[in-house]
């Protein structure tokens, strides 16, 4: 534990320190043309295709979409955790603080994971080791990445548990996960993920498994910690209500592609891609008399059976012949350059737009 190695203090505050200092305005994370493929039935099929987005310091980008749209695969690709047996990042770049993660070896990637980029998962009930105490599991990341001694790490872990608002953290430090509720476990997961003060947090549906009141508490906690730590966050969810409360920008994904990306207010005010529009329309509202829920007909196409042309075309109410013939590009709207849409009809390349 106490083996040599340079002392690591605030070596990655967003600006300066070891590594490539990132100048203001340069995004902390830039995903460029990411392709992640899986092997199914003998062939490689992209689960994520040509995905590009950037996340600025302190920014929260929400990725929304139905199950199976490639949201989680995108996050796993950034973490370098695509299962090597049947998956791989097949193309593109993942630039994080000036380095291309897609080109890094496993050993270098391991130093970044849990330290500079962290991830929290959907299932707090099963994401903690049942035979190790809460305190040990939170302290472990600090011991591992920061070469802290056990006492020092335990003290820091206790502080973290206080920060994520575990009641009487000192008494509960030596408790085991089964003595915690789901919401409390998710707080512990957050404490573990934030132990090393990462610059980027990937949150993969962190509130989906929690009941609604606990969801709100955990979201508030995440927002508070994000502000306190100055982290960037990629928040994956299918819950648009959550998006509205936490995100700065939103990317809607469908069948492995980003179909629309825009600042959150812009997206809610003016959903332009038919998929986003239908997604927003399908939110049940408490302030209206709803007899039936609006649903999008059909299903996300299987990974091995992608339609040609626009992937949403088979389910799209606006479908025209061009949609099934050629892939639409992701293009900015003419009057809003930070609002990009992938649709032949709503955002034709080289003009038009949805004014």
């Amino acid at each position: 534990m106490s083996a040599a190695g340079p002392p690591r203090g605030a070596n990655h505050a967003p600006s300066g320190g070891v590594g490539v200092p990132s100048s203001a305005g340069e995004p902390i994370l830039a995903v460029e043309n990411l392709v992640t493929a899986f092997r199914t039935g003998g062939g490689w099929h992209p689960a994520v295709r040509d995905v590009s987005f950037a996340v600025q310091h302190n920014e929260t980008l929400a990725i929304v979409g139905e199950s199976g749209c490639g949201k989680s695969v995108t996050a796993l690709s950034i973490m370098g955790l695509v299962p090597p047996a049947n998956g791989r990042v097949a193309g593109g770049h993942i630039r994080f603080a000036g380095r291309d993660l897609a080109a890094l070896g496993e050993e270098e990637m391991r130093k970044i994971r849990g330290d500079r980029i962290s991830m929290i998962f959907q299932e707090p009930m099963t994401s903690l080791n049942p035979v190790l105490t809460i305190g040990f599991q939170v302290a472990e990341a600090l011991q591992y990445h920061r070469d802290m001694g056990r006492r020092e790490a335990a003290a820091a872990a206790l502080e973290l548990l206080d920060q994520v608002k575990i009641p009487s953290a000192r008494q509960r430090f030596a408790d085991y996960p089964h003595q915690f509720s789901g919401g409390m476990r998710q707080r512990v997961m957050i404490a573990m993920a934030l132990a090393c003060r990462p610059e980027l947090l990937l949150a993969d549906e962190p509130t989906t498994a929690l009941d609604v009141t606990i969801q709100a508490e955990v979201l508030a906690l995440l927002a508070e910690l994000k502000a306190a730590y100055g982290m960037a966050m990629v928040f994956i969810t299918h819950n648009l209500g959550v998006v509205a409360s936490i995100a700065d920008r939103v990317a809607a994904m469908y069948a492995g592609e980003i179909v629309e990306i825009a600042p959150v207010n812009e997206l809610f005010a003016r959903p332009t891609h038919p998929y986003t529009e239908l997604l927003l329309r399908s939110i049940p509202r408490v302030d209206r008399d709803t007899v039936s829920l609006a649903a999008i007909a059909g299903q996300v196409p299987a990974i091995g059976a992608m339609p040609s042309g626009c992937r949403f075309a088979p389910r799209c109410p606006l479908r025209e012949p061009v949609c099934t013939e050629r892939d639409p590009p992701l293009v900015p709207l003419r009057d809003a350059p930070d609002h990009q849409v992938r649709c032949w009809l709503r955002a034709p390349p080289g003009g038009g737009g949805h004014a």
Partner: protein
Amino acid sequence: MSGDTATVPIAPRGSSYALQQLTRAFSANATSWIGLVIFLLVVALALLAPLISPYDPLDQDILARLQGPSAAHWFGTDSYGRDILSRLLWGARLSLVISTVSILAAVVIGGAIGILAGYVGGRFDMVVMQAMDVLLSFPSLIMGLMVVAMLGASMGNLMIAIALTAIAPFARIARAPTILVKERDYIEACRALGYSDLRIMTIHILPNIVAEILVMASLWLATAIRIEASLSFIGLGVRPPTATWGGMIREGFENILDSVSLSIFPSLAILLVVFSLNMLGDGLRDAIDPKMRGGE
């Protein structure tokens, strides 16, 4: 948990929860208690051998050869006039040391192989486990013969032979739960925290499977005592005049027409220890039965 911890509690390293659970389930089981008590009694007698044995185990008394039980020699004497009780007590030390050391070695080596194979998976797993199957195909006596033929008869080589026999079963018993545990979400979470494979295997997987290995170890301890006796019986074990249980049975066998006590008492001793360890192991196995851990 304690109410008023004045200092920050130090994080435990590993398996305490699994062990807690094991002891809780274990304490409800009467048979395993009987087994444990008998076994500990034998261990105590073996440890106290220098103090309580009535004679030196190597002292010969040619005038008192092959006697039956008497007030002077409770269990009688052997063909050199040595006191059987004293030799049994001293022999217990050797039998216990040999079985414990060899099983410990098998647990460590076999357990490491099993966890590694289960964790890495794929072709590596296949090759390693096939090698284990090859090892498993040698009966313990044949393994003993081979080791002794190659290295010579000695206590150390006896332990090597027993350990070689037991490595493959421990590799199997460690591999199966490793394959289950490595797919759990918390192992994925460990990867997301950047932990090394070695750390994941030793700190996160091992404590989850340690109970299974312990149960197996208690059962194999009995087997090791049996193997030691068998190998000593056919003359592949510890050299005379040192007392071991298997060696004593062999000497008793040679003189069985003149005196039966030299055959009977060491056999009873082996029976008692094997029986107690099996009761202990069965109790432990019941304790980790999945239906007992349902509330996890």
